[in-house]
C-alpha cells in the first residue's frame, strides 16, 4: 500500500532507539506485520533498501515476522488460526468471532553494535 511511508516511520523510530542506546551501528530490525493488513513484505524490503542507504541501518538485516490471523469464537470459546478470508468458527460454525491477531504493524526490537569503550559512555547518558 504505502510501504515507503511506513518504512520512513520505522527508520525514524529505529534511529531514535539506536541513539538512545548509544549504538553506532544497527545490525538487525525485527518487525511484526499481520497478514490481515494491506502491507506487502516485498514492498517493505524494497522501501527499506532504498531508504536505509547512508544511514546507520544500511546493510542491516530486516526481519519481517508475518503474523497469521487468529480469532476467538464468542460462542464456543475456541481459539483458532485461519486465513485471510475464512473467519467462521471451525468447531461450531459461528459467525460471531473476534480477531485477536493478524492486524499487527509493530517494530519489535533492534540488534545494535555499541562501542564498549569505557571512556565513551553512551551519549544518551547525562542528557
Amino acid at each position, binding site marked *: *500500500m*504505502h510501504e515507503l511511508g*511506513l518504512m520512513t*516511520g*520505522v527508520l525514524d*523510530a*529505529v534511529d531514535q*532507539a*539506536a541513539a*538512545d*542506546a548509544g*549504538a553506532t551501528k544497527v545490525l538487525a530490525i525485527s*518487525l511484526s506485520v499481520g497478514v*490481515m*493488513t*494491506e*502491507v506487502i513484505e516485498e514492498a517493505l524490503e524494497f522501501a527499506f533498501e532504498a531508504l536505509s542507504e547512508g544511514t546507520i541501518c544500511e546493510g542491516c538485516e530486516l526481519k519481517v515476522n508475518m503474523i497469521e490471523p487468529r480469532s476467538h469464537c464468542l460462542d464456543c470459546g475456541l481459539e483458532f488460526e485461519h486465513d*485471510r*478470508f*475464512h*473467519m*467462521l468458527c471451525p468447531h461450531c460454525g459461528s*459467525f*460471531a*468471532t473476534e480477531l485477536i491477531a493478524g492486524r499487527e*504493524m*509493530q*517494530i*519489535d*526490537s*533492534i*540488534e*545494535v*553494535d*555499541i562501542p564498549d569503550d569505557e571512556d565513551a559512555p553512551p551519549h544518551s547518558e547525562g542528557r
Partner: protein
Amino acid sequence: MQVEVNSPILAKNDELAAANRALFAEKRVFVLNILASPGSGKTSTILATIEALRDEFNIAVIEGDIASSVDSEKIKAQGIAAVQVNTGGACHLESRMIQRAVDVLDLDELDLILLENVGNLVCPTDFDLGENAKVMILSVPEGDDKPLKYPGVFQVSQAVILNKVDTMPVFDFKKDAFYESVERLNPQAPIFPISATTGEGVEAWAEWLASRVRSLH
C-alpha cells in the same frame, strides 16, 4: 545487543487519531469514515444521507481528494459545511489532515461529520483517523467479486453499502454471491442496498447511522 522497541509503525498517526477521538468524544460528534473506490458514488451517497438526516442533526462533511474542490462545492451547494482536504497525491487520509480540517469546523454546533476518504479500497483501511465507525460503499458496476479481491476494506467496515442497485439488471451482478462473500469476511456487518440517485433503500441506511449518532446524546 538487543534493544526492545515495541512501538507501532504508525505510532505518530495513531497518537493523533487518539487525540482526534478524544476531541470528538468531548464534543459528542459522531465521525463516519467512508471508504470506497473512485466513481462508486461516495459523494452522491453523502448527499442522500444528508437529505435523510439534516432535519435531525447538524452535519458537516470533510472531503478527501487528491486534488480539486469539485466534491466540497457540491456539498456546500446544499447549505452544508464542507472542508476540502487535498492530499496532493497521497492515496489515503491521515490523522494529521483530519486534525487540521476539523480546526475550521465548529464542533460545538455539530452532531455528525461525514468523512469522505480518498477513492481507494486498499490504503485507507489501515489508517485510523479517530473516527467512530468506518463504512464502505461498493457500487454494482464494480462487480460482486470485490470482497474476494479487497478483503481488508470489507473487514474493517462496520456496515457495507451496496450502491447503484437500480443498475443491477444491466450488470451481471450476482447479489447472492456478494452477500455470501461479505458475510464470510465480516459476519457482523449489515449490508444496505441503496440507490443514492433514486433514493431507494437510503432510509434504512440512514436509520442505522442515526441510531449511532443518537447514542452519543
